[in-house]
């Protein structure tokens, strides 16, 4: 018999059997349109610290969130590249005419990473857990619309309905990152009231399962965490090949960015997620010789801002800060500070040009919502001086700025000691405001201490912080801009709006959540941006570019300006060229 013919027949029958395997069980796989890759290999990434948990119910820290995104899946997913929603575990969905009911059709025949089948009961169980007040899940806050939780009902084994208390503009987006939990593994813990303690990072990998592209293989505290390919993953490529392509992803625990950069340069680590402009510059010259590629993705969703303590303080507890609030509360004072800040110098000296100056909270990375009409007044010490003079401030003969009572204007800016960029920004502002006669002290403190001062003790005068919008949509920002919001940093204890512009911010933010029309929502949010730029409740200064790096032989890389910058689409990553064989060998037989 012709040997070639036998081989061809065998190959055809093998391909037919694998395709049939996906199809015969009635598996509703999702066919993705990404670049078609080759299977195998190990990718090495790094984390700044050990993950605190692998439990999606209690997760708050970033390393854990990054891992959980790879281990689990949600009903509707935001594609971080297009920033639009797309089908995930919900194959399709319908919205009722009043915009309050979402009926979802779930994928049939798919399984968790331990092989157990998935159905509507898992969805019901997951939402029951997240919405349970006793569990204290941080997700609960996100699943509230107009202050009331959403309701979930089972319509069939693969059909669920979600009832919203009121129409909600970004309703589809709230399902993103709400990981569906395996009822068969967690129901017992939930009934016993121990679900928040389940699935610690040190748990046995066999008790952890999800619907994500990878599953837990090994965790060595302080050293590394290894994920392996989920053989039951429900996505395939255009050739019906099951994703993900990579066999393993290992995360080494590397505590500082500099150490991560050095290990990346040495070739120990294959991808580098979000680095500073300085480290980008340090790595840039060796791109070709060391076989890696750096990506400057432009402005991300992060912005650095300065804010003053505008909380309602008791004169007894913090008399000194209360006295200085007389200045901070004046619009002219904050506007003068904003005018005196040299944003261009911050971009140049701190970010080496890899950043964009900002006057409001929406960064150029958010193309759908940015208001191009917001004025960008250039730095002007003259205008700042005029504003200060109109507010009753004057300069003494030695140049010191004093208020109408003759008190010198002095205050302290707190900033995060582990963030070199923010310390540099603070030092530049110190010099800028010094030119107005203000005496500014910069105190770098440990991040947690600053958070305690800003959110609990309210014992601070001013601070420089950064915020990252979790989504392109303005809805998550409601926490920042409404007076009762949880991240209303400058006036944490504000019960009702203290200024007319704050009252307008409250109304606009509430209104835009209930409008379904994009244009009308945009109008409302444009006005929010104008208020922020005009009244400076926080003085927005700069948005740094998102800078990432990956091995040149890593293919399928589609970096996003949102977290996880490179690994959000880990299922499509694969090794190309010569490196692939080396990588495949590096994994060894144990991973298969």
């Amino acid at each position, binding site marked *: 018999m012709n040997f070639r013919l036998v081989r061809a027949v065998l190959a055809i029958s093998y391909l037919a059997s694998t395709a049939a395997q996906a199809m015969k069980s009635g598996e509703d796989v999702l066919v993705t349109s990404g670049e078609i890759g080759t299977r195998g290999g190990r990718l090495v990434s790094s984390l700044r610290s050990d993950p605190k948990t692998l439990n999606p119910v209690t997760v708050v820290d970033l390393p854990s969130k990054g891992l959980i995104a790879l281990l689990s899946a949600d009903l509707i997913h935001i594609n971080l590249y297009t920033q639009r929603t797309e089908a995930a575990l919900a194959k399709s969905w319908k919205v009722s005419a009043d915009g309050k009911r979402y009926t979802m059709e779930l994928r049939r025949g798919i399984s968790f990473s331990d092989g157990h089948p998935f159905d509507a009961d898992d969805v019901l169980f997951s939402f029951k857990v997240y919405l349970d007040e006793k569990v204290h899940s941080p997700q609960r806050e996100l699943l509230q619309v107009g202050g009331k939780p959403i309701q979930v009902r089972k319509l069939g084994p693969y059909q669920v309905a979600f009832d919203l208390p009121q129409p909600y503009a970004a309703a589809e987006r709230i399902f993103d990152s709400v990981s569906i939990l395996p009822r068969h593994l967690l129901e017992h813990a939930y009934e016993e009231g121990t679900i928040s303690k389940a699935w610690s990072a040190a748990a046995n990998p066999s008790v952890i399962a999800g619907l994500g592209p990878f599953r837990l293989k090994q965790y060595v505290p302080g050293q590394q965490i290894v994920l392996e390919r989920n053989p039951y993953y429900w996505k395939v490529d255009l050739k019906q090949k099951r994703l993900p392509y990579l066999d393993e992803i290992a995360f080494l625990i590397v505590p500082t960015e*500099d150490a991560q*950069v*050095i290990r990346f340069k040495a070739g120990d680590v294959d991808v580098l997620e979000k680095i500073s402009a*300085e*480290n980008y*510059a*340090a790595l*840039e010259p060796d791109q070709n010789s060391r076989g890696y590629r750096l990506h*400057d993705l432009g402005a991300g969703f992060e912005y650095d801002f300065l804010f003053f303590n505008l909380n309602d303080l008791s004169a007894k507890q913090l008399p000194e800060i209360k006295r200085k609030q007389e200045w901070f509360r004046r619009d002219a004072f904050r506007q003068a500070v904003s005018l005196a800040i*040299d944003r261009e*110098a911050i971009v*140049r*000296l701190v970010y*080496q*040009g*890899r950043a964009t100056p900002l006057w409001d909270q929406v960064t150029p990375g958010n193309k759908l919502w940015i208001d191009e009409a917001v004025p960008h007044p250039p730095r002007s010490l003259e205008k700042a001086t005029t504003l200060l003079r109109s507010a009753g401030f004057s300069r003494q003969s030695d140049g010191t700025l004093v208020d109408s009572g003759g008190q010198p204007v002095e205050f*302290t800016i707190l900033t995060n*000691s582990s963030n*070199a960029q923010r*310390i*540099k920004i*603070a*030092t*530049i502002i*110190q*010099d800028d405001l010094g030119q107005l006669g203000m005496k500014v*002290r*910069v*105190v*770098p*403190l440990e991040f947690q201490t600053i958070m305690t001062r800003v959110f609990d003790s309210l014992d601070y005068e001013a601070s420089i912080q950064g915020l990252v919008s979790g989504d392109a949509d303005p809805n998550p920002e409601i926490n920042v801009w409404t007076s009762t919001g949880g991240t209303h940093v400058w006036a944490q204890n504000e019960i009702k709006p203290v200024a007319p512009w704050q009252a307008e911010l409250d109304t606009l933010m509430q209104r835009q959540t209930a409008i379904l029309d994009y244009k009308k929502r945009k109008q409302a949010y444009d006005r929010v941006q104008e208020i922020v730029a005009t009244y400076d409740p926080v003085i927005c200064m700069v948005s740094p570019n998102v800078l990432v790096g990956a091995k040149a032989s890593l293919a399928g890389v589609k970096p996003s300006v949102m977290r996880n910058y490179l690994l959000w689409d880990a299922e499509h990553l694969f090794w190309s060229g010569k490196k692939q064989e080396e990588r495949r060998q590096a994994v060894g037989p144990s991973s298969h």
Partner: protein
Amino acid sequence: MTTNKKLWFLALSLAFVHVVVVGAAFFAPYDAAEQHRDAPFAPPARLHFVDAQGKLHVRPYVCSWTNQTQGIGPARYAEDCSRTASLQFLVRNDPGGAQVGPGMTWHLFGTNGPAKIFLLGTDDYGRDQLSRLLYGGQVSLFAGLLATALSLGLGLVMGGIAGYFGFWLDDAIMRCAEVFMALPWIYLLFAVRAFLPLHVGPRQSFFLLVGVMGLTGWARPSRLVRGVILSAKERDFIRAARGFGASNAYILRRHLLPETSGVMLTQAVLLIPQCILAEVTLSFLGLGVGEPVSSWGNMLASLQKFYVLQSYWWMLIPGIALIPIFLLYNALADALLRRSKIKESSDRSNLMGERKLQEAL
């Protein structure tokens, strides 16, 4: 070189360094906090004596640095010799300089043209490294001197009391000193600094630093002083003084404490570099004086960043400056020890000579 000459040479060298640092406002070309934002991380200036045409210049000149990076990326400089400035001595160029007379401000050197002179380069804000080094020396060197003075003062009092009065006072003070010596000093300094208020100005911060270092460094000198006093108080002339009715205070002041001068002097020159290093360490870790005031520690702090360490060698200069200063102090301590040994042996031989003479008589 004889011991005395060596001593003089070392003392004068150290005095010179301290005088230059005290006169930073005059010797530094710019203010330590002045930001030249168009020149971040500019390399050290080159002094030119011969121009492109081969013409010799008696008065050296500098070319201005031009940043070739337009927009994005780290600054990359090239000399632009179309914009030059010659070096000038005794210039008046900014109001931060030394006030020589009413309304007069002077600097030892500067430039007369558009080019600025950064002999040791600039830092990430474009601040002149030489000026920051000189002003920073005021903090680092004088924190060392003052903290040492405080440590020695405390050590002298505590050691004197323990050695002279003995009994339970001796036990209490010495056990306390042992506790201080057993504690790792750097962590002790951290702990003490952490309890202090955050909202302090540079001046208060400096004195707090000196206070903290002085209060933690008294243990070793106090033990030495106690040892000297214990041996000295049993000597005949002390007994004689006591016999003549001298008070404790008089004996301590007139006879015992002068005995400790040699030990104290040696201890001082050994402690000063340790205290300088402590200040540098604390400032390096962000616990010293805050920006924009410079100290050698906070100047070195930028080297914690990988890219600075890799790219800008001139940021290491404050660390390099510490080496000769430490060597000078250690050599001075060595010379002082030698001198005290020579003195001791000559005293002993004089004593022996006197005894022999008495025996002969």
